[in-house]
């Protein structure tokens, strides 16, 4: 049989009705201030982990909004919880709590998947 593995038929278009919002709803439930993020980049600018690797806090927020769960689980581990972003955010969003909630929710989803 011919091998079609090189083909990726999924489209890059965000299908708003079907994106995985389990993380987003969980975060908004406990940290409503995240809803006011205007993606200004102050947090990424000041991020200490951002100096050492290609970690981007603002993108975490963008991915959270569009349900990029795999990307989030890869990247979220890079945060060092130093709290500088929370000190800079002009919207007073508790970003450190958002990161904790994402980590929590991802590990919850993992355990849910493992459960029969």
């Amino acid at each position: 049989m011919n091998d079609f593995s090189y083909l990726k038929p999924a489209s890059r278009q965000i299908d708003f009705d079907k994106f995985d919002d389990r993380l987003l709803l969980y975060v908004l439930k406990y940290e409503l201030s995240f809803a006011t993020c205007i993606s200004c980049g102050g947090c990424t600018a000041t991020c200490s982990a951002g100096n050492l690797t290609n970690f981007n806090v603002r993108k975490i927020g963008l991915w959270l909004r569009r349900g990029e769960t795999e990307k989030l689980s890869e990247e979220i581990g890079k945060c060092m919880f130093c709290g500088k972003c929370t000190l800079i955010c002009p919207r007073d969003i508790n970003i450190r709590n958002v990161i904790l909630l994402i980590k929590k929710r991802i590990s919850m989803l993992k355990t849910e998947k493992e459960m029969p």
Partner: protein
Amino acid sequence: MIEKSIIIPFLIGLIYLSIIFIYRFTKWIRGLSKLDKLRLMQSLKSRRFMLSLKEIFMEGLLHHKIFLKNPILGYMHMSLAFGWFLLILIGHIEVMCAKNSIFVPFHLAIFFRYFETTKNFAFSGVFSFLMDFLLLFVLSGVCMAMLKRFKKQMFGMKRTTRLKTGDRIALISLWLIFPLRLAAESMSANLHGNGSFLTSTFGNFIGNSGSETANFIFWMLYSFSLGFFFIALPNSRYMHIFTEMLFIFVRNAGIKLKKHNNTFTDIQVYSCSRCGLCLDNCQLATAGINNTQSVYILKNIRNKNLTDEQLFNCLLCGKCEVDCPVGINTIDLRITQRIESTLQYNSSYSYLEDIPAQKADVVYFAGCMTHLTPGIISSMKKIFQMSGENVWFMDEEKAPCCGRPLMQAGQYEAASKLIFNNTKKLLGSNAKKLIVSCPICYKVFKEDYELGKMEIVFHAEYILQLIKDNVIKVNNSNERIIYHDPCELGRTMNMYDEPRSVLQETGKLIPVKNEKQTAWCCGGSLGNLKISQEERTILRNQAVEDYLQYKPDILATACPMCKKTFARHREIKVLDISEIITNSISKPTEEKITKQKTKNKIHENEFV
């Protein structure tokens, strides 16, 4: 035989209680690590055993620590605990005298007045007087406890614990025991005249309506209340009575809380009596947060329904640990729960590379927060210039975080990766001294880093040393200065004096009511991951309004986080110790600073 039956409810309760205790105590002790068990055995043989006994007496019975804080409350606890203990003890001696033999059935003392209707044994008058007096002593405690439950302000307490059903049942049954005993003994006194001043007065108050059956009913009720209390005890706050004794022995054996839950955590959790003393000084209450204080956390750990929202909503300022009469390490216990809750997602930080270290005598690690207060960095640079030492500013460009905020979020394993990376660089520089200007970093470098012979120095200590060796000449501008003790520096690392002695050199240091161990928390703590910004503002304003009463010219602090938090309040001028020092040095050799520039500019060439 029916008379004997009054013992049955009491016996059932007692047996149930002892089974539970034996089961729990053995489980806990067997659960300790081998080393800790050895330590425990050793301590029983050594002088520490007597020390523990003395502490059990002083704390368990007299509640000496509560007395120091709040005498009325102390008396109430003492009367209940010590009174009841004496009641049992002397009751047994009385029975021994009455039966003039050492071996007597232990339950007899409880129902002595019921069984022993005559008074014809040695010193019976003295005993009955003593027993009545002790009963009165205990009853006074019970009345005060009832009063406290409804009028807590009278006892100088702002808040008491909100009790759940389990505790409430146990509480009421405890309150019933002694009045019922009084009633029972007065009934016997009325019938057989074996009471003393208290019970007989109550006895003849009952008058002739007393009868044998009524007597029997009252004694049965008394026995029921005892039995019921013993059954309710194991899963209520009164579990604390016996667990605290075990806790005292284990603590005196030098056993420490581990970074994971083990039975020592259970011992500490069960020895919490939910007295609510940790509530008053917890600042979160002023911000309207009333369910995350230590007493509620310990309860939730016990009932296994602890939520992240409570666990991570605590400033880790350590005030409740100072207030806890039982000596529970509330902060470490909470951190251990945070470790357990975040165990699965410790990051690997595999992206950390080994940036080569720069050889220097002194390494300065500013820390993440200090990068957001450049005033501190530029002052420290000037101080290093003055000290003339060869300093390597390690994290000027980029460096991983010291790891402490990560630990406060419970991720110790992940933090160890940062610590490893930083340690390699620090040792690589083979400097003699590591200077930090942030107490959050100071604690982790001091306690969790192994830096061999490298001395970890907080910038206040370093500046004090420079002043003593008069490398820096400081002019006292006798401005009114208030020093805010950062939680991580004060309560956690017990450094209170160095910053003060530095500040005394530069201005008039005004003592404030809330300082040192009872200092305010600025509200900006990294320990709290759940608090909202509005709530932090309420905490900060509370502290600032208190400081403003003293009309300070400058509020000095030694932590970039405190400085950043206070600086958002417009009516108070906040400066770090290093900034005050650099300001006070430049005054004499420089013309009057122009009004509009609030920070002084230092001409570099002057010091090269």
